[in-house]
C-alpha cells in the first residue's frame, strides 16, 4: 500500500515538472513606408544644399537591408543618383565630356526618385503625411534636375543641348542623336545593359558645320534572340548608347529602355481525349507567326500561324504520348516587336476500353459452393479473360459480341468475402486492357448445411460427464434440479464417492460406524461433518456430544491434515461414546 502511494506521489511530481516553453516570437515586420519617405526627403533636402549629411544618409540607405523586393530597384537607383550627384559636385574633373556623361547617368536615375516616392506614398499608412513628403520630394528632385541641367549647359559650352534619350522605345522607333562636332565621335554603339553584349553600331548619317546626326535603329526582338540576349517582354530591356570617339575611347551617351511584347496567341486544347482519337486544337492569333509544336518535349510539327483562329489535328499516336497527362507546347519565333514565346497546355489521354461488362453483385448466395460471373462483350472484339481469386486462376476466351461464364470457388467458410480480379485483354485491336477488381460477400449454403449435419452427429459423442455438467449449469434452479435429480446423482455420486467412503480414512470409517451403531442419522451428501454435528448435538446427551466432537476433530485431522492422529485415540473415543450411550 505504502509503495503504491509513493509511486502515485512520484508520478504526480513528474507530471507537474513540465519543460518550460522557450518561445521567441520576434516576427519580422514590414518596412515603415512613411519612414522611408521621410528619409528620402531628408536626404534630397541635404543634397540640394550640398550638405555632407546627405551623402552619409545616401550611403547608409544603400547599405541597409530590409527593403521590400518590389521597392529595392527604385531604392537603389534613387540613392545611387544622389550619391553620384555628391561625387559629381565634389569631383575635380574638368573633362566636359566625362562630366556630361556623368550627368546623363544621374539624370537617368533621378527619374526613379519620383517613382520611388510615389510607391512609398501608396504603401504608407498615413496617406496625408505621405502626400506631404512626396510633394516635397518631387519639388526637391526638380531642383536637383535643374541643377544637373545647369551643369550640362555649363560644360557643353555652345549652349546647344544634347538631345536627351526618352525613357522607353519600341523596336519600330529610331533615335536621332545630334551631337556637337567638337566631341569628335566616330561611331555610336549599342550594348545591352548591364550585360554589355554588343547589339549594333552606327556611323554618322549627316554632317553640318557644328553637329553630326546619328540615326539609331532600335534592335528587334529577333536580333536579340539571335544574339542570345533573352526575352524581355515583362520588363523592358535596358540598352546603353556609347559614343566611340576618334581617339578610340568611349563615352556613355545614355541608357534607355526598349519595350518588347509577347505575341498575342491563345491555345485551346480539349481536356480529355480517348487514345486513338485525333487531338483537335485551336490557335487564335492577332498576327503572323512561325511556330513549332511539341508533345512531351518532342517536336512534332511546324506551322505558320495566321491572324484569326486556326484548327490543327494532331495524331499523337505517332509520337511519344502516354496514357494519362501529356503536355502540348507551341513555341512562337520572335518577330520585330515580339519575343520568343512558348505556351503549354496539359491534356489527358484516356485508355480506350472495349465495351465489355462483368455482372457484379455485392452479396451472393451460392448453392453449389461457386460464385458465377458473366462476362459479356458488346463490341466486335475478341478478348482473353484472365480470372484470379485466392483459390486459383484461369484463362477463358471471350468471343466477339458474346459472353462467357466464370465460376469462382468460394472457399470452405459459411460466410466469405471473395476478392477477384478479371483482366480482359482484347486481341489484335487498339483497345486497352481492362482490369476489374471486385469483392463479393458469399453465403455458402453447402458449407452451412454440412456444418449443421456434422454438429448434429458429433454432439451425442460428447461424454456424459460433460453433458451432465452442461445440464447442471443449465439446471441450477431448484425446480429444474428435481427434474435432473437422477442425472445429478449419477454424476455427483461418483465424484463424492471418495468423500462418502472417508477418502481412505479409517478414523472416518470409525466415525461413520459409530453414528450407525448409535442409530444417529448419517451425514447427508451435501452437508459437512460439522453441519451434521450441529444438527445431532441437540438430540444427544452432553457427554456423548463432547466425545463425538472430539472424535469429529480427529476425523477431520485424519482426512485433511498431513499430520495424521493416532488410531488408538480414535478407538478410545469410539468405546467411550458407546459407553456414554449405554451400548456395548
Amino acid at each position, binding site marked *: 500500500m505504502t509503495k503504491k502511494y509513493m509511486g502515485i506521489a512520484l508520478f504526480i511530481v*513528474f507530471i*507537474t515538472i513540465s519543460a518550460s*516553453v522557450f518561445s521567441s516570437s520576434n516576427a519580422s515586420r514590414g518596412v515603415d513606408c512613411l519612414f522611408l519617405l521621410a528619409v528620402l526627403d531628408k536626404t534630397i533636402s541635404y543634397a540640394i544644399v550640398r550638405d555632407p549629411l546627405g551623402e552619409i544618409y545616401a550611403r547608409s540607405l544603400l547599405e541597409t537591408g530590409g527593403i521590400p523586393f518590389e521597392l529595392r530597384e527604385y531604392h537603389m537607383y534613387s540613392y545611387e543618383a544622389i550619391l553620384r550627384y555628391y561625387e559629381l559636385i565634389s569631383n575635380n574633373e574638368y573633362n566636359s565630356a566625362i562630366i556630361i556623361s556623368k550627368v546623363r547617368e544621374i539624370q537617368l536615375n533621378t527619374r526613379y526618385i519620383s517613382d520611388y516616392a510615389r510607391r512609398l506614398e501608396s504603401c504608407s499608412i498615413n496617406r496625408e503625411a505621405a502626400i506631404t513628403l512626396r510633394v516635397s520630394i518631387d519639388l526637391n528632385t526638380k531642383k536637383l534636375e535643374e541643377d544637373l541641367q545647369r551643369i550640362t549647359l555649363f560644360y557643353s559650352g555652345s549652349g546647344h543641348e544634347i538631345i536627351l534619350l526618352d525613357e522607353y522605345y519600341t523596336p519600330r522607333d529610331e533615335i536621332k542623336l545630334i551631337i556637337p562636332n567638337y566631341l569628335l565621335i566616330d561611331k555610336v554603339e549599342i550594348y545591352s545593359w548591364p550585360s554589355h553584349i554588343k547589339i549594333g553600331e552606327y556611323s554618322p548619317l549627316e554632317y553640318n558645320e557644328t553637329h553630326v546626326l546619328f540615326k539609331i535603329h532600335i534592335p528587334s526582338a529577333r536580333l536579340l534572340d539571335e544574339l542570345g540576349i533573352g526575352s524581355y517582354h515583362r520588363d523592358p530591356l535596358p540598352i546603353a548608347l556609347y559614343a566611340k570617339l576618334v581617339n578610340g575611347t568611349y563615352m556613355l551617351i545614355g541608357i534607355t529602355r526598349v519595350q518588347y511584347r509577347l505575341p498575342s496567341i491563345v491555345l485551346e486544347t480539349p481536356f480529355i481525349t480517348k487514345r486513338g482519337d485525333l487531338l483537335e486544337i485551336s490557335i487564335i492569333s492577332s498576327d503572323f507567326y512561325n511556330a513549332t509544336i511539341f508533345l512531351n518535349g518532342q517536336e512534332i510539327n511546324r506551322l505558320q500561324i495566321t491572324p484569326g483562329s486556326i484548327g490543327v489535328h494532331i495524331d499523337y499516336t505517332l509520337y511519344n504520348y502516354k496514357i494519362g497527362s501529356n503536355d502540348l507546347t507551341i513555341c512562337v519565333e520572335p518577330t520585330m516587336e515580339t519575343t520568343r514565346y512558348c505556351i503549354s497546355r496539359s491534356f489527358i489521354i484516356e485508355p480506350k476500353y472495349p465495351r465489355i461488362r462483368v455482372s457484379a453483385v455485392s452479396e451472393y448466395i451460392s448453392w453449389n459452393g461457386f460464385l458465377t460471373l458473366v462476362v459479356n462483350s458488346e463490341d466486335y472484339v475478341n478478348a482473353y479473360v484472365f480470372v484470379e481469386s485466392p483459390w486459383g486462376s484461369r484463362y477463358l476466351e471471350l468471343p466477339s459480341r458474346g459472353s462467357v461464364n466464370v465460376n469462382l470457388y468460394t472457399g470452405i467458410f459459411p460466410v466469405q468475402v471473395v476478392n477477384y480480379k478479371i483482366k480482359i485483354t482484347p486481341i489484335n485491336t487498339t483497345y486497352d486492357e481492362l482490369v476489374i477488381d471486385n469483392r463479393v460477400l458469399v453465403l455458402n449454403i453447402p458449407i452451412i448445411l454440412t456444418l449443421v449435419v456434422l454438429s448434429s452427429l458429433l454432439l451425442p459423442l460428447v461424454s456424459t460427464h460433460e453433458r451432465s455438467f452442461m445440464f447442471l449449469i443449465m439446471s441450477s434452479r431448484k425446480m429444474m434440479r428435481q427434474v435432473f435429480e437422477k442425472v445429478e446423482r449419477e454424476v455427483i455420486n461418483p465424484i463424492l464417492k471418495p468423500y462418502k467412503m472417508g477418502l481412505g480414512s479409517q478414523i472416518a470409517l470409525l466415525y461413520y460406524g459409530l453414528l450407525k451403531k448409535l442409530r444417529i442419522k448419517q451425514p447427508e451428501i451435501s452437508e459437512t461433518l460439522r453441519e451434521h454435528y450441529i444438527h445431532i448435538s441437540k438430540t444427544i446427551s452432553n457427554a456423548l456430544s463432547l466425545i463425538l466432537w472430539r472424535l469429529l476433530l480427529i476425523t477431520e485431522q485424519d482426512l485433511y491434515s498431513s499430520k495424521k492422529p493416532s488410531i488408538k485415540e480414535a478407538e478410545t473415543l469410539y468405546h467411550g461414546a458407546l459407553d456414554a450411550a449405554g451400548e456395548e
Partner: protein
Amino acid sequence: MPQARSRLILILTVSSLLALLAGILIIIGISIETPYSVVNNSDNGLSELYDRYRGRVLYEQAELANYKGERTLLVAPRTTPLKDIGTLNNYVEKGGLVIVYGKPEYIINFLRALGINTSFIGYVRTGLPALESEFLVSGNVYNIDTVFKNPYTIRGVEADYVIAWSSYLSYLDLNENNLYDLGEPIGPQILGLEISIGEGKYVVLFTEFFLENNVLTYNTRCIDRLLETRELIIDQSEHVSNPLVYLKLTMETRSSPPHMYVSLALIIFIILVAYIVVKE
C-alpha cells in the same frame, strides 16, 4: 510500540527526502522568465552572458566588497530603482567598471542619484527593421557597432559624456506608437554616457536590453572591449527575493549563497538522526 514509532520516522524521513527531490526536480525543470536573470534562458535572460564569460553572480551588493574593482566588471541591469547607490559608488571609486542599463525608471533614478537632472523623452525606433524587429536598433558604443533592444533617450545629458548613439536610420518615437509619424526626429539619438568616479566609471546605457540572450551576439565585441582582462560579475540582487529564482541560482550557478552550506548540513543531520532512530 517501538516498531510502529520507527516505522513512522522512516516514513517521515522518506517523505521528506521525496519532497526534497521533487522540489529539486521542479526547480531544475521549471523555466524562469524574470528579466536579467542568469537562470533565464529566454530572450530577456542573461544565461548566455553568464555561460559565455564564466561570470560570477552577485546575490547582494554588499558582496562587492569582496571583489577588487580594477579586476572586475559589474553588469547591473534592473527593472526597479536601487535603494542605495553607496555600495556601487565605493566599488567604482576603487577602479570598478559598471555597465548600467534597464528600464527608464531605473536609469533616470540612477542618474539623479548621481546628481544629473534628467527626464525621459521617448523610445528610439528604426523604420527599417534589418534586424528581427523595430525594437532592435543599431548604434554604437565607443564607436563599436552594437545593437540595442528597446532603447530610449533622455534629456539633460551633456555632449562631452556621450559614448553611445543610435544609427542614422533611427527616429524618436515621441507618441510611442512604434510607427514613424511626420515630425518625429530622424537621426542619431543619444543612447549612453560615461560617468567617471574616482578610479573607475559607470557606463550608463539608455536601453532596456543590451546583453540579454537575444542581443548578446550583436554586442560581444563591445563587452569584450570593456572586459579586457576583467572578471565579469552579474548583479542578481534584484531577484533573490523570489524564492524560486533564488533556489535556481544556488543550484545552477557557480557562486554559492552563504546559507547554502547551513541548509545542506541541516538536511544531512536530519537524515543521520532518522537513520539512528530507525536502527535502534
